[in-house]
Structure formats: structure tokens, C-alpha cells
């Protein structure tokens, strides 16, 4: 195999310069959750850049000789595939890089190149099939997208049949297909109902937002999903798209415009924490007091990727008698839960390791409850804190404020 002609590395001119702009200072290594969990330097941005640089140059003998690079043959690329996919795309490396290298975007581009070289991790095939056929990350069909609403009172089903609505709630794949996250979408629905918001759901017409595909470097496959979703939401005449999932939010808010979809969205995209902080300020949802120590875990796609740090904290501070403590790492330096960047689908043990590290940080705060504003964070942290026998309760903010808005 080593005699085969190698696939050229396709990056933008800017990314090519970035690869050589890395000074190997190691800041990204220290901040990398995958490295923290595995202690394997090969998974860090720094090492990925190094191999990518060799890949970039190694096709030309002249450049390879003069620019002193190591050989990258197809065998090396196979191993590189594993290294490139051991990443949560948390973006902490972007945050700490002293020379502002956009490592997260680089990682996605490298994944794209790995895909072109037909070296995706074995698990990718099934996920891509689910997304291509079932339009979600979990199953080969999309009919069960509303299973989470089944156990709710009958009256709620009316929201699934509305042809027109001011607000469309985009539940996201995790809250639609993973029972452990069902209560997030249920809580959001109940809160919207209590606040008497004119809202509706897409139901089986809600397709995956496309972020898992972007994260895998398959952006060309995401176009169909993007266009479908925009078309359906436009058709409902919605003015606001309410996202419960930070990855969906990031995708809608920052990635869709970048890809210039065929159809222009006619609505504003907002995350549930931004939406409910307004409703709470307007006193549309009264809250009971809660005597507990709580901490907040910043989801990467909501915080670092979208810059939303304050609305969740404002919501928490609005709860009477609550005692809020920050975690050791928070806001733009918050440690990832381990559930992002498709990592769990390819390397569940690495996710487990990262979640364990975050669980430790949570425990150190002495909090009774750790809140988040992400379905995937809630899922990953719940499963792993339970496995590690941590006493802390993991909740999504929507779940907590829904509970506190109920009469005692």
C-alpha cells in the first residue's frame, strides 16, 4: 500500500499558512480534553498539524528534501484517521492558541481529507447511512422523532399539527431519540405552553440540522438537510426558530449562512436560554425558590462556538434562594463534557474519559446539581457521573425551570 500515490491534502491557502504558523508551543495540548483523557499526544492539534504538514509537503520530493519533512504514506494516513477523529471539536484549542490558529476548523478540514482518502473510521458508515436515509443520527427512519411527546398529556399533540406558528421549536436529534434527554424537550414544551407562546413542532419533518456531517467533514451531504429544514420552517411562517440543542443552534446561526443555502431563512434563530431569560424577565413564568448549591457546565457549541455565556447564568441567578458556584474552568475555558464532535460515535472510551475529568471538576464545586443547556452534555454527564458514583444531579436548565414553575 505504501507504493500507492497519495491523495493530495486539500486545504485553503489560509489553512496552509496556519499549519506553518504553529510554533508548537503546546498551549493546545494542555487545553485538549482528548489528550487529558488519553495522554496520547498524537490526538492533539499540534501533532495533527505536524502530520498534516508532512502530508502537505510529502507529495513533492523537492520540497520534502528541502523542507525536511517526514514521510506520510497511506499506512500512516490510516493511523492519522484515528488521531484526527479523537477530538470533541470543543474549540478550546482555538481559544488558547497564541497566534489565533483556527484549529477546530482545521480539524474538520482534515476529517474531510481523511474521508476523501476513504479512511473514515469504521463506525462512520452506519452514521452516514442513518443521516442519508433516516435524516437523523440514530435510526434509519425518522417517524419516531416525536416519541418523546407520547407520554405527555394529549393536549400537547396539538402543537405537532400546527400548520403555522410564530415560534418553531427545533428539538434536535438527541432530545428526540435518546430517552434520557426526552425530559428536556418535554420541559421546553411545557414552559412554552405555560408562557402561552404561539409555537409549533416540525415532527417527522424535522431533519438533523447537519452538524454531525459538518463535524465529519461531509459538508456536501449537509446541504440537503439544511435546505429541507429551512423550507419547512419558512412554510410554517415562523418568525423565531427556537433551538434547544447548542449544536443545532450553532449550525443554524453560524454555519447555515456560511454555506449559502438555496433558500433564505425568514426567521431569527435563538437558543432556549436566550428565549427563556426574556420570558423570565417579563415574569411570564414565575419560579419557586430552590435551596441548593448549583453549578453550570458551559456547552462548547453554546459558549465558545456561539458566545452565549450570560443568559444561562442569568436564568440561574433569577431562581430565589439558589446558591450558584462557578466551576474551576468556565465560560471560554470550560472543559468539554466529551460528547461533542461525533467523538462518542467513534471513540466512546475517550468520551468516557473526558466526562470523568469533567465529573471530577463538578464534584470539586460541592454542588448538589450541575446544570447545562445542552442535551448531549446532559446525556453524557448523567451517564458518566452515575457510572462514577458521583452524588451530583445532572439537569438541563429547561428541566429545572420547568420543575420550579410548577406549583409545589
Amino acid at each position, binding site marked *: 500500500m505504501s507504493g500507492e500515490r497519495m491523495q493530495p491534502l486539500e486545504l485553503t491557502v*489560509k489553512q496552509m499558512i496556519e499549519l506553518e504558523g504553529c510554533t508548537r508551543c503546546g498551549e493546545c495540548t494542555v487545553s485538549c480534553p482528548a489528550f487529558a483523557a488519553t495522554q496520547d499526544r498524537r490526538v492533539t492539534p499540534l501533532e495533527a498539524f505536524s502530520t498534516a504538514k508532512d502530508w502537505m509537503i510529502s507529495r513533492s520530493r523537492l*520540497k520534502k528534501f528541502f523542507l525536511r519533512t517526514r514521510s506520510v504514506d497511506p499506512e500512516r494516513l490510516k493511523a492519522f484517521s484515528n488521531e484526527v477523529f479523537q477530538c470533541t471539536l470543543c474549540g478550546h484549542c482555538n481559544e488558547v492558541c497564541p497566534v489565533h490558529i483556527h484549529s477546530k476548523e482545521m480539524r474538520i478540514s482534515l476529517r474531510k481529507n481523511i474521508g476523501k482518502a476513504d479512511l473514515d473510521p469504521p463506525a462512520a458508515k452506519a452514521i452516514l447511512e442513518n443521516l442519508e436515509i433516516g435524516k437523523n443520527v440514530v435510526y434509519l427512519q425518522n417517524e419516531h422523532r416525536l416519541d418523546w411527546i407520547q407520554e405527555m398529556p394529549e393536549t400537547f399533540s396539538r402543537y405537532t399539527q400546527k400548520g403555522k406558528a410564530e415560534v418553531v421549536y427545533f428539538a434536535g436529534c438527541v432530545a428526540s431519540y435518546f430517552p434520557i434527554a426526552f425530559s428536556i424537550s418535554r420541559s421546553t414544551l411545557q414552559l412554552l405552553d405555560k408562557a402561552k407562546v404561539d409555537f409549533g413542532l416540525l415532527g417527522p419533518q424535522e431533519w438533523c440540522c447537519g452538524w454531525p456531517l459538518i463535524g465529519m467533514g461531509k459538508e456536501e451531504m449537509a446541504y440537503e438537510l439544511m435546505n429541507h429544514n429551512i423550507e419547512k420552517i419558512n412554510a410554517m411562517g415562523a418568525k423565531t426558530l427556537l433551538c434547544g440543542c447548542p449544536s443545532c443552534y450553532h449550525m443554524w446561526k453560524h454555519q447555515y449562512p456560511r454555506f449559502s443555502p438555496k433558500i433564505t431563512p425568514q426567521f431569527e434563530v435563538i437558543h432556549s436560554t436566550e428565549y427563556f431569560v426574556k420570558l423570565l424577565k417579563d415574569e411570564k413564568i414565575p419560579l419557586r425558590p430552590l435551596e441548593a448549591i448549583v453549578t453550570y457546565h458551559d456547552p462548547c457549541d453554546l459558549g465558545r462556538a456561539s458566545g452565549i455565556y450570560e443568559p444561562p447564568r442569568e436564568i440561574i441567578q433569577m431562581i430565589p434562594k439558589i446558591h450558584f458556584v462557578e466551576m474551576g474552568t468556565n465560560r471560554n475555558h470550560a472543559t468539554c463534557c466529551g460528547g461533542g464532535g461525533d467523538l462518542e460515535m467513534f471513540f466512546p472510551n475517550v468520551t468516557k474519559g473526558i466526562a470523568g475529568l469533567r465529573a471530577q471538576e463538578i464534584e470539586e464545586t460541592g454542588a448538589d446539581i450541575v446544570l447545562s443547556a445542552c442535551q448531549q452534555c446532559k446525556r453524557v454527564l448523567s451517564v458518566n457521573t452515575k457510572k462514577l458514583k458521583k452524588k451530583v444531579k445532572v439537569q438541563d436548565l429547561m428541566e429545572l425551570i420547568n420543575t420550579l414553575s410548577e406549583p409545589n
Partner: protein
Amino acid sequence: MGEVNLLDGKLFSAGGDKRPKTMDKHLIFYLMFIPTVIFFIGGMALHLSVWLEGTFPGAENATKVKKLKMLLRRGWKGFWLKPGWYFRVLWVDVIFHRKLFRQSFYRWVTHTLLVVGFVATFIVDMIKGFSTFYLLELSHSFPIFSFAHEFETGLVRPFLDFFLEFFSFLILIGCVLAIVRRFFLKPGQLQTEEEDIITLLFILFLEVSGFFIEGYRIAHPEVSQARVYMANLTPASANNWVSFGGYFLSLFFKNVKINADFLWYFHVIPSLLWFVYIPHSKLLHIFTSSVTVFLNRSEEVEH
């Protein structure tokens, strides 16, 4: 060794066999300098060629030349759209290194000493070399350039000597701090590779040899009077003490005799080699990291 009349400020004396001797030195220098520049440009061109293999949004099938033109045109236009922003980024993010300052004061001090030291030394050295060599020569034909004498023996000279010494001293401190961090403090994030060692040793050697030569020049005024080497063309100064590092070392060199030609090669050859080494080492980041900061800061601002 030939003698040159210092007082008339001429580099090449008119007298007989003295002239070819000095000319040889220049010939040797240019014979080394020109290939150095060629190798440097060649190294940079190789990298540029690699970068231009990348895609350019909106012009996926463009040739490398076309991509380069587009890149330069876009950069030029972008600069004139918001020149203030570019100067701010240059100052805050490229030179001051705000992000590093927030992360680690030690690293920031080290890096800043090296950056400021090198940039300032380069500027002062250029001023000194240009004024005491080319301008002084030209002043004999064009009196308008007679101010160059101020740079050689006049009022400006002590300032040049001091700043050159001062900024070189900053580099030396920065280099020592970097060596301490890399080889003694050894933070876990850092992996020391061959090129890190070579780079630091290069810097250390260039600085130490520079101070050494300055010390020798001060201790032996006859060396610069005879102008046998080019590392410092300027004649002995009345205020040698402003070159504080060299002056200090000169106290130990009074009774030491070294071949002045050797001293010259001792500093100049490694300096030129270092120049050639830049495109083939992490030192390339002087250019690539600066460009990266500009490109990505503008994206971050938009975001």
C-alpha cells in the same frame, strides 16, 4: 594590514595597496551575502509554493500566480478599508502579543524581549550600517549627505552604540529565559526538538559573539582604526562606555590578541547561516504566525 585615513571619513583610502585589501573584505562579504539572500528567498519561495497549493475560496481552479495576486490584492484592499484596525492588530496582537500576555507572563516577557530586541537591533544596525557606509561614501560626491558623519563620529554615534548594545542585551536576556524554561523548568506541554536547540544556540552564539567583538574592538582601537573587519565599521568612539556590555568585556580583553579576520568570520558567518536557517525552522513563524493573526483576527471580529 592597510591603514585608512579615518578623519576624512572615507572607507576606501586612495593610497596604493591599501585599497584592494579593504575591497577584498567587501568582495568576500558580498560573496557570502548574495548566496545567503538567494537561499533565504529560495526557502521562502518553496514555502510560498506549498501554501499556494491550497484552495482559494471563489477561485478553486486558479493558478498559483493568480492566487498570489488575488491574495495580495485582497490584503491591499482590506488594509485600506480599515488601516487603523490593521495597525491596532499589528501592535496589540502581533508585537505586544496580548494573548500570550494573558496566558503566561514568563513566556510573554521572553518572547517580547526576543521580538523587540531583534526588530530594534535590526533597525539600529541598518541605520548604522547604511549611514556609516553608503551615506558616508556618497557624502564625498554629494555634500547633502554630509550629515552621515554625525552617525560615524558625531552626536548620533553614542546613541546608536547604546541602542545596539541595549537591544542586543534584551535578546540575550530573552534567550537565557527561553533556555531556562526549555531546559530547566521543562513545562509538560513543551517538547524540545532539534530545531529548538539549534535556534536557541544560534541566538545565544550570535549575541555572545557580538558582545565579544564589541569588547575586543573597544579594547583594541587599532583594529577598527585599521578597519580590518566589517562587523563594526565605525571607528573608536570617544564614548565607548555607552556600549556597556562590550565595554565591560573589553576590560578583560586588553591583553588578549586575536586575529581580527577570524573575529569577523566568527560573527558574520553564523549570522548569515541563521538567515538561511529561518525558512527551514520554526523561525518561519515570524512571517506565518503574523499572517495567521491578521487573517484570523479579521474572521473573529466578523464572527
